[in-house]
């Protein structure tokens, strides 16, 4: 079980959280103006890296807030977590 550092609550066990998929996926500004391929990219295409991954989590059984997380998908080690309005670390 992962020990996830919520930016507001500190380290808590994984089962207090809900995984939210890849972070920083931008919704097209004007959905009606994009073609089917671009819309499919937004709906269905996600990064699936073997390595460093930026992802969303939500502390559903805690503060209820969303945040972002950088995790290595091979070791499952969490590099850092940060608040939704913050830029991802380089």
């Amino acid at each position, binding site marked *: 079980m992962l020990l996830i550092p919520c930016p507001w609550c500190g380290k808590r066990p994984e089962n207090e959280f809900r*995984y939210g998929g890849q972070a920083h996926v931008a919704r097209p500004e004007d959905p009606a103006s994009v073609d089917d391929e671009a819309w499919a990219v937004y709906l269905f*295409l996600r990064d*699936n890296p*073997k390595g460093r991954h930026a*992802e969303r989590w939500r502390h559903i059984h805690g503060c209820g807030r969303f945040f972002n997380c950088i995790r290595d998908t091979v070791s*499952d080690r969490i590099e850092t977590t940060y608040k939704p309005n913050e830029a991802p670390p380089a």
Partner: protein
Amino acid sequence: MDSRSSFSIFSLLAHAGGRAWDRQWRDAQPKSAYDVIIVGAGGHGLATAYYLAREHGIRDVAVIDKGWLGGGNTGRNTTIIRSNYLQPESVALYEHALKLWEGLSQALNYNVMYSARGVLMLAHNHHDVQVFKRHVHANRLAGIDNEWLTAEQAKAFCPPLEIGPHVRYPVLGGALQRRGGVARHDAVAWGYARAASALGIDIIQNCAVTAIHRGPDGAVTGVETEKGRIDARRVGVVAAGHTSVLMGMAGMRFPLESFPLQALVSEPVKPVMPCVVMSNTVHAYISQSDKGELVIGAGTDAYTSYSQIGGLHISCETLAAICEMFPSFRRLRMLRNWGGVVDTTPDRSPIIGLTPVPGLFVNCGWGTGGFKATPGSGHIFADTIVRGQPHPIAAPFSLDRFADGRLIDEAAAAAVAH
């Protein structure tokens, strides 16, 4: 095929005195070029190679794998076979596989231990009852055997099952596919490897692909591997959880996410479990291997990962469910648990067919339930590679469906909650 390696009562008698069995397949080293390269020596990849040679006469084929043959999800799954999916496209696909399972041991001259002992999917609440009855009716319209059992009938079919009302999720009934069952997963890989090797196909292990080469026109020209460059005009990627990594080498993103999926086995005991039981709602599935171990399938982790391990709490939750459904199993000890990396698609159906890169074919996205499809998957993928267009059964499972919206939603039929 070398006559000494053909299995029969006579070969069995000949070896009864202790003479060692010969190697069942050649451990090949790569040539510089092949007609077709299959990346991934799991069940699906080996089956593809076998059918390329057997059905289409294409024997200049290499199956290459970064590890050992059958060492990925083929050797890590819980071996359940069934075809009672909801959508007509899926029914055609999985039933095609089931029909091949029924004659596979004879076709390969290798006992894959296919056992049609019945797959019982339990309903624990009103919603389950409605969904499974819908499945039963849809399957009957499609000519697929699937029948509704009451809780008492389920108990009669599977005596160790607890159907009392005093548990959190009581058994309200179940859907039973009698032709469903299990097979020996390793034997499936070994049987296809042996048969493919005998037909002249090179199986190359411990040879990871590090790049996919393309010509000036964008078409595939070969692959770079740990054992050097191998040229081929047609490359089929059958790499399960690592498909995204390989597609990235060809400059493509794929609608796949990789998750660890776990399974575990108990200490071996005498026969106690006559069939396969699956439960989506409490999330557990269980059968008994011929060695006597109870084979238990757990869920995927919540997050994407290539760890091949998974969190222990996932297995523990499944064991809690097993103990509630089968109180007599509570004192059994678990021998070992493990994880595999499964590639899931947004609609929980596989992607089989062409890619935007000419000459590059893909067979992926089987998610948590690919073992059951192994023979059918290999059969239609070989046909797709040979013709350069999707086999009719594979056609609905194209990559295009995510752009045009013709999704094949099997989230309810996939036994694992994602």
